[in-house]
């Protein structure tokens, strides 16, 4: 056992190595741009150098003279595409801003031309020789920029239904013994998955194959088909491996349909490899947000009033909504709650999901404010959370399906050595370094969506699982293979899993941390269908079923539920009884409470996520607690984070190895969101400044000396058949607050705007 493969506790699966491990260490794992194409034309994008205005004229002669140039496509000669609706309005797109549609420029870095050439080198050179004349208008970049408009989110975005409220906040706040009123800010951030936003399109007659890293192959397939005006069955999206997603590949981006349309006209496959800097404007990003938090409490720390007002930046045409108040109004017991989310429109590309989209910015505000309240009350911040721990949803009164928040705090505090903390700010140091300890809670809604699967079992136990799930690094192949092996009672080596292909049975978007719960529940159900058939073959009469174990040595229960004395179902005997060579079953699973149109929507590439606070009688969240040590140099103000400790409870842990890795990566993401990551925007021109991996800071190995992940044993029988809560987006929430809380402890300075740079420290 290595640290990477912790021994399973109760209700945890085996920490088997990744299903795709050998492929990934040998270079055999094929990502979208690795797929072979027959004599492709290479595409290179030209993107706009202004954020608002019009294209007056293209000068293309110089570019066309480059040897090997095939064509240059602009709005003047581009194939026409049908409109695509935003995903939150029943469509597929992450933005309604369409490239090459007109001369209008809506944001910096908008795709304005596609250069096609025989080689990548020629396409790149020609793209750099394209000259564009613009008439520029003054753009609005962000909050406070002239020309922005603001309005309540409710009514603008169908996914943001309600501003949660309960009781009488104003009255309770007025009367509160202790009050806190504070503001926080979080910046624009970009996912920057390692794999670029590449797209390859190849037509075979009327059929289109798209190789593109996607977190939702059914969404992409249906979205591109809609834009091209063709039957969705003619489109196939293939991506067995995805080089990181983090939300950036969840909804359709504008590049895909236009590349497909150009390939059709050219009658030749096209390979597009956009640059890293283009990735900042041709996909989505995390919106910047602002928060006003008001807390009222009794002197003994009981919350009596809580108000969270959030404002978020989106694009002119699209009301993307972060909307984290659904979580921050429900995390702690409080009788009087109020909230409001509003959206500010600026001349930007449309933001979108980025790992824990609502929770990262909104819990930064709430968990920082809790720490400020603890200081005001002269109370340990862990104890303040214990006093306000909830057993029911404070808004709707529904009970939590399970909630191990304080158990997580206690485990993590112990591992971290929280008891060694002297509570006074600036009271701990080591030579030139001021030391601070800080903590925060994390939580993430447990979500599920309908999913289908097909499973084929052979007489010798070889099993093939087909499901259009996505391997974005989460370990999806591995946990699906484990589920099938356990359920059918075959050895793991005999299970083959096929994913990342829209010709396979539909699975939901790999987003909202729903994948494991949804896909494994579907696979489990289909394996049970197979078991049922085999069992019936051996035991045709129901009345004999009870005696089955004694008479022929089989059990109707799958291996995961079998009692100790049960013997495994004898697959060979069952096959002989059935007289077949292969047993194959297809099935469609949907979570409790899924809407009536769920399965139809699933095939149409539209997700019907259920769970979180939207369950009928209960509320389902995963929880965790995070502790950090921060060191601030008293002379240079350099900030270091030598230790991150997190404890998490997320129902059944399917594989402690892949789960630990995701949580570990999440903690590092959380640190990064506090200390490193921000996309800087030039407010005069509404253009991104640091659009590359040298200037947009992401963590490197030297940034993270010590990370400890603790997984708690938790059983939850109310959420889904697998009993798993999503955890891919659990660990990077709250870390930003824990770090600012630790900085306050180290320096006495409260920082309310992310990211924290050394120039923000005043000593």
């Amino acid at each position, binding site marked *: 056992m*290595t*640290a*990477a*493969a912790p021994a399973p506790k109760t209700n945890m699966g085996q920490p088997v*190595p*990744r299903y795709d*491990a050998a492929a*990934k*260490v*040998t*270079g*055999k*794992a094929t*990502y979208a*741009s*690795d797929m072979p194409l027959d004599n492709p034309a290479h595409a290179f994008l030209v993107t706009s150098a202004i954020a608002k205005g019009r294209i007056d004229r293209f000068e293309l002669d110089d570019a066309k*003279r*480059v*040897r*090997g140039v095939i064509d240059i496509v602009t709005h003047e000669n581009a194939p026409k595409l049908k409109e695509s609706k935003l995903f939150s309005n029943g469509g597929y797109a992450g933005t309604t801003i369409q490239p090459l549609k007109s001369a209008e420029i809506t944001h910096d870095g908008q795709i304005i031309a596609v250069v096609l050439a025989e*080689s*990548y*080198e020629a396409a*790149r*050179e020609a793209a*750099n*020789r394209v000259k564009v004349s613009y008439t520029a208008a003054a753009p609005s970049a962000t909050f406070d920029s002239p020309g922005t408009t603001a309005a309540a989110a409710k009514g603008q975005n169908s996914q943001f239904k309600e501003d949660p409220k309960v009781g009488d906040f104003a009255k309770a706040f007025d009367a509160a013994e202790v009050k806190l009123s504070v503001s926080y800010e979080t910046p624009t951030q970009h996912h*920057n*998955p*390692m*794999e*670029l936003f590449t797209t390859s399109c190849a037509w075979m007659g009327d059929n289109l194959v798209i190789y593109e890293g996607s977190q939702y192959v059914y969404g992409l397939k249906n979205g591109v088909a809609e834009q091209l005006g063709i039957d969705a069955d003619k489109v196939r999206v293939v991506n067995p*491996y995805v*080089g*990181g997603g983090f939300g950036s590949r969840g909804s359709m981006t504008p590049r895909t349909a236009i590349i497909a349309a150009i390939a059709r006209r050219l009658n030749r496959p096209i390979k597009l490899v956009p640059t*890293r800097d283009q990735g900042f404007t041709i996909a989505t990003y995390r919106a910047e947000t602002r928060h006003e938090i008001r807390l009222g409490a009794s002197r003994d720390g009981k919350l009596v009033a809580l108000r969270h007002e959030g404002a978020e930046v989106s694009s002119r045409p699209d009301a993307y909504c972060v909307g984290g108040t659904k979580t921050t109004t429900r995390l702690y017991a409080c009788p009087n709650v109020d909230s409001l989310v509003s959206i500010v429109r600026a001349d930007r590309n449309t933001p979108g999901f980025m790992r824990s989209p609502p929770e990262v910015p909104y819990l930064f505000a709430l968990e920082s404010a809790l720490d400020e309240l603890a200081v005001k009350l002269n109370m340990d911040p862990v104890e303040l959370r214990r006093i306000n721990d909830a057993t029911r949803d404070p808004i709707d009164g529904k009970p939590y399906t399970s909630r191990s928040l304080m158990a997580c705090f206690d485990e993590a505090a112990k591992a971290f050595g929280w008891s060694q903390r002297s509570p006074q700010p600036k009271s701990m140091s080591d030579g030139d370094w001021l030391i601070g300890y800080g903590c925060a809670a994390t939580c993430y809604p447990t979500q599920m969506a309908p999913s289908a699967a097909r499973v084929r079992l052979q007489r010798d136990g070889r099993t093939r699982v087909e499901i259009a799930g996505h391997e*974005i690094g*989460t*370990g999806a192949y591995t946990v699906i293979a484990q589920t099938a092996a356990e359920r059918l009672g075959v050895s793991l080596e005999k299970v083959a899993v096929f994913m990342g292909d829209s010709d396979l049975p539909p699975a939901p978007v790999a987003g909202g941390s729903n994948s494991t719960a949804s896909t494994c529940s579907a696979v489990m159900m289909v394996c049970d269908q197979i078991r049922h058939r085999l069992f019936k073959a051996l035991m045709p009469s129901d009345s004999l079923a009870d005696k089955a174990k004694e008479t022929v040595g089989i059990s109707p229960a799958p291996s995961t539920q079998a009692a100790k004395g049960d013997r495994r179902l004898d697959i060979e005997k069952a096959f002989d009884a059935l007289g077949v060579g292969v047993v194959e079953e297809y099935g469609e699973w949907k979570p409790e409470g899924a809407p009536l149109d769920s399965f139809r929507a699933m095939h149409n590439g539209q997700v019907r996520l259920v769970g979180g606070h939207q369950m009928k009688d209960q509320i389902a969240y995963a929880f965790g607690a995070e502790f950090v040590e921060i060191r601030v140099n008293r002379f240079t103000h350099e900030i270091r984070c030598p230790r991150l400790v997190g404890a998490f409870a997320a129902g059944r842990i399917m594989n402690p*190895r*892949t789960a630990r*890795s995701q949580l*570990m*990566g999440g903690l*590092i*993401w959380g640190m*990064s969101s506090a200390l490193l990551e921000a996309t800087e925007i030039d407010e005069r021109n509404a253009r991104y400044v640091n659009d*590359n*991996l*040298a200037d947009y800071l*992401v*963590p*490197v*190995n*030297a*940034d*993270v*000396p*010590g*990370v400890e992940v603790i997984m708690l044993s938790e059983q939850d029988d109310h959420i889904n058949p697998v009993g798993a809560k999503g955890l891919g987006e659990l660990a990077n929430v709250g870390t930003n607050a824990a770090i600012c809380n630790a900085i306050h402890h180290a320096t006495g300075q409260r920082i309310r705007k992310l990211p924290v740079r050394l120039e923000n420290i005043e000593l």
Partner: protein
Amino acid sequence: MPDKPGSRSSGFDRRAFMAGAAGSALIPITARAASEDARAPAAQDPSLPVEVTLRVNGKDKRLSIDARTTVLDALREHLKLTGSKKGCDHGQCGACTVLIDDRRVVSCLTLALAAEGQEITTVEGLATDDRLHPMQQAFIDNDAFQCGYCTPGQIMSAIACVKEGHAGSEADIREYMSGNICRCAAYPNIVAAVKQAAPEIMKG
């Protein structure tokens, strides 16, 4: 990087090429300013195919390529060795790292012509007879990746890190592996993998 005598098959002078073309063509931003080149005599046109022989994973590969082709694009687009990955094309992320004469090099910033006559090792060249290289095995054992996209570069870099003598402590490994970005942030597991594989690699 020492030249190996007699290794050049095309008769193309690498140094002359570097002086003439690298500055103007490889870096797109100056390509516009250097538009004179496009009208220059054909002999100096970088888009004209150039014959080159690359030695990759112990085998000579003869190619006819645009003179501006990087080692990374030569591997991926011309030799169909897609293990090495493009993550930035700017030498900022390390996903394209290969070994050239045993040194770790970002192949996106190395012209294919400049690598002629040198030994290029990619991730595809590490395993022998289905036996994984110790570093590959260590990456599996320590779950040192998630999405896997940066992994080939991490592994090549890790092998060089050990051979350079920079794997003596965890702090050293962290420092000398910081040229390879892993956005999934498998970093602590990468450190553990390098630590595990180091003794076996040093043994030879």
